[in-house]
């Protein structure tokens, strides 16, 4: 089977150079003359930080002032996962095998790293309230731990099928939605947290988001990680 050409014909490259060069010139020219005195919304965020319930301004923006963006962004993540599942395990709920047995070096590394990663993830989640951190960072580290375990053969994701997986993927989004709807009933607007409980609600949302993000990232990796032959067999097998 012939490998595809890795380079395009000269005409395509010349056209691409003209297009990207033009766009780049326009962009960089605009970037160089950006006004130096525009404070943006930073003062407004600072003025309302106390009312937000958390001390880290980025978390306040992500979970409170613009929490709606974050809710939709989790929807994108869930959506992408459904899309990947529809391409990889549409005909059986079995997970692909990433590694049958643990390779010695990898296994030692995983045994050493995985517990530490769980700990770091917990710290990042907690730290997000007042310092850089939060659900995404925590979820990424936890998800990476999951991938490490799968690669070293410890985790057996093949056993994790069906409803449990789907529930883990969506739980963060569903908790976020439930909080948003609850606020409509209690406070009168979507995602308007009751002032006294804002911090607790945000932490609860973030904790569940961490779980979902970790499972999503790990399953995005694992469901595409198997060799092409296995993927082919898996897709054909169900028909």
């Amino acid at each position: 089977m012939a490998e595809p050409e890795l380079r395009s014909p000269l005409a395509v490259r010349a056209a691409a150079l003209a297009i990207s060069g033009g766009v780049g010139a326009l962009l960089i020219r605009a970037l160089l003359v950006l006004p130096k005195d525009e404070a943006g919304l930073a003062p407004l965020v600072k003025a309302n930080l106390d009312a937000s319930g958390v001390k880290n301004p980025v978390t306040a923006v992500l979970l409170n002032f613009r929490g709606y963006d974050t809710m939709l962004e989790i929807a994108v993540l869930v959506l992408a996962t459904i899309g990947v599942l529809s391409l990889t395990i549409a005909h059986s709920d079995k997970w692909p095998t990433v590694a049958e047995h643990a390779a010695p070096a990898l296994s030692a590394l995983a045994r050493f790293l995985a517990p530490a990663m769980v700990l770091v993830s917990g710290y990042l989640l907690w730290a997000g309230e007042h310092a850089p951190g939060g659900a995404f960072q925590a979820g990424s580290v936890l998800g990476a731990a999951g991938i490490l375990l799968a690669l070293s053969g410890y985790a057996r994701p093949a056993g994790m099928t069906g409803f449990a997986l789907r529930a883990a993927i969506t739980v963060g989004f569903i908790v976020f939605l439930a909080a948003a709807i609850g606020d409509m009933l209690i406070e009168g607007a979507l995602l308007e947290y009751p002032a006294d409980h804002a911090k607790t609600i945000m932490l609860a949302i973030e904790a569940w988001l961490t779980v979902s993000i970790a499972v999503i990232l790990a399953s995005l990796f694992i469901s595409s990680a198997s060799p092409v032959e296995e993927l082919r067999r898996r897709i054909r097998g169900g028909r």
Partner: protein
Amino acid sequence: MTQADLYTVAGGVLFTIGLYGLITRPHLLYKVLALNVASGGVFMVFVGVARRVPGPAPDPLPHAMVLTGIVVTVSSTAYALALAKRIFTETGMATLDSADTMEGGEDAAE
């Protein structure tokens, strides 16, 4: 040129490189990576923009937007890679010409 300018301009250059790679590289893996380079450029522009406000603390808004953007990019990259791999599984090739190289099947409701 300030430090913030350095970031925004570097971001602009990265975006340009990504755009060029997306157009010129036929292999789907390269195309997805090129889009990632371009996304990285856009995020660097945001980071640079965040640094321009007076005072020690950067503007939190662009930082929040970058975090949202990263999650969106992770999602679309994961899906695009799964799609590229499925195309390779079906056709043995990973380019946008893959559909032309084989007999087309009939579309039918199933």
